[in-house]
């Protein structure tokens, strides 16, 4: 079962929920899909090893064969190719690796080579949770490609927890598009509430079952709870606005490790998710 932890906005506690949930369960995989800012391992401190380079195919133009017909540069939708009077210029950082230019070139002047976008890393040896993360190279824009490669390591026989990137754009869809359940983390402030509603739009449009975790509960007002009640959205867990939790977070310690009573609460949340999924399954049949 794949469970994504997401939020309309960063900084709401996505990583906190992912980590504490993963640490409370056994036989789970944890994936840090926030490849622009992967933070999970700051809290886990695992030794990591590279398991794969994420690459993107890029064209290499043989200037001798090229007749400067401009077919390729006219075609490229990402403006990665520009025709000069005497040659074709290529901008690797704009290329999405679609392969179109190589297919089009009638002179067979284009062959493909590879460009590195980032890496996939895994915790060394046996770790609990089994941990994978993607890391996007600095200055690189193909976030979704790294996320898609990372997700190849999901083992369908296990519970996989995916810490999704913030927002509602393409990297989020790449992360949560095919999960069984999505946990939306929010806080009950005007910003948090607004971002929650955006996130709800996303999961609804993807038809992914979901529930809400309220972080820093007690801060702000009751608008999130009222909204969830009105919309029939289940609130899975409330994490109080607690000094000890904030302090542990700032030091990079998942709070279940120092506050063991929370293990039970996260396991309860997991059970609630399973129940909700069983109910929706039943309703469908």
């Amino acid at each position, binding site marked *: 079962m794949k469970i994504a932890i997401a939020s*309309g*906005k*960063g*900084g*709401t506690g996505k*990583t906190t929920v992912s980590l504490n949930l993963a640490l409370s369960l056994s036989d789970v995989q944890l994936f840090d899909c926030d490849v*622009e*800012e992967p*933070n999970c391992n*700051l*809290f886990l401190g695992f030794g990591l090893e590279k398991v794969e380079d994420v690459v993107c*195919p890029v064209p290499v133009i043989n200037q001798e064969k090229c007749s400067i017909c401009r077919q390729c540069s006219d*075609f490229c*939708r*990402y403006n990665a190719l520009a025709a000069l009077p005497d040659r074709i210029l290529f901008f690797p950082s704009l290329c*999405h*690796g*679609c*392969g*179109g230019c190589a*297919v*089009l070139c009638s002179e067979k002047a284009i062959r493909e080579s590879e460009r590195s976008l980032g890496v996939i890393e895994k915790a060394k040896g046996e770790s609990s949770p089994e941990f994978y993360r993607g890391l*996007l190279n*600095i*200055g*690189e*824009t193909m*976030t979704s490609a790294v996320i898609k490669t990372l997700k190849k390591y999901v083992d369908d026989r296990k519970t996989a927890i995916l810490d999704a*990137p*913030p*927002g*509602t*754009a*393409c*990297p*989020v*869809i790449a992360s949560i*598009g095919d999960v069984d359940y999505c946990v939306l983390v929010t806080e009950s*402030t*005007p*910003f948090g509430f*607004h*971002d929650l509603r*955006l996130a709800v*739009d*996303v999961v609804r*449009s*993807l038809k992914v079952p979901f529930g809400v975790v309220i972080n820093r509960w007690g*801060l*702000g*007002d009751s608008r999130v709870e009222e909204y969830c009640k009105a919309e029939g959205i289940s609130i899975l867990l409330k994490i109080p606005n607690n000094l000890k939790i*904030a*302090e542990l*977070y*700032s*030091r*990079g310690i998942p709070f279940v490790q120092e506050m063991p009573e929370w293990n039970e609460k996260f396991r309860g949340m997991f059970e609630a998710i399973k129940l909700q999924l069983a109910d929706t399954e039943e309703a469908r049949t």
Partner: protein
Amino acid sequence: MKQLTVISGKGGTGKTTLTAAFASLAKNAIIADCDVDASDMHLILKPKVLEKEDYYGLEVARIDPELCIECGRCKEFCRYGAVSGNFKVDPYGCDGCAVCTVICPKGAVSMEKRISGQVFSSETRFGPMAHASLGIGEETSGKLVSAVRSNAKKLAEQYHKDLIIIDGPPGTGCSAISAITGADLVLVVSEPTVSGVHDLKRVLELTVHFVIPTVVCINKYDINEENTQLIENFCAKLGISVIGKLPYNDIVTKAMLQEKTLIEYVKSSKCLNESEFADQICQIWTRMEKILMNIQDKQKGTKTLEMKNF
């Protein structure tokens, strides 16, 4: 005209709250909300939309079932796995590369425009504002950021403003790059948590990579003074100045609940502690204005930052 971009690497550091406060302090500025994916600034600034324009992102492929002979070539060549088993294109998966249109032997695929969001030119109580909204799952937030920035430039010319304050997106990817390129100064709002420190390093790598002058502000510095020290040392090593440190204060949430900027909120508050907090923000702003002015002076002999090894 100068451009200041406020970014944070990680979300939730108080970036938007600070940017909104700066907006209320700046004398002659345009506000550009480039945190287009889940933007929040409008909740405080309440812009009145003057002009609205559809924003077209990358196109999306469509297969005409009448013409398609199900030969499977498009599926084979699509590198994004966007063509499904029954020869339909998944709009979320399609990258708009158009390879399928040239591969299809029957000319059954066409590219269609898609509205990926809206860009707005608006008016707020602190002056004009450029902002946008991005449709769900859309691919091109980097391009949309550029669209907001060019709108902001137009507004600045129209209203004779000399500064654009850009609220930037989180992360170091496509949209963050679009928000900082060409900026005169980047302010990174950081917090002294382990993840805050880590993300600060990543965004500083980014601003150094693009050779943009950068300053740092540490928010909630007192929640972990050790990490605050770490940030200060790290910045000192890079020659990046820390222009302010703000303590943790509930006022941030209180002002937000009243939909006011911190500066406005403090005007109606009698609490000494709160007005001190606002005063610190004013000081940070004054320092930044000074830096921006100096950048203008130095324009001729631009100093380039060296690429440092992290």
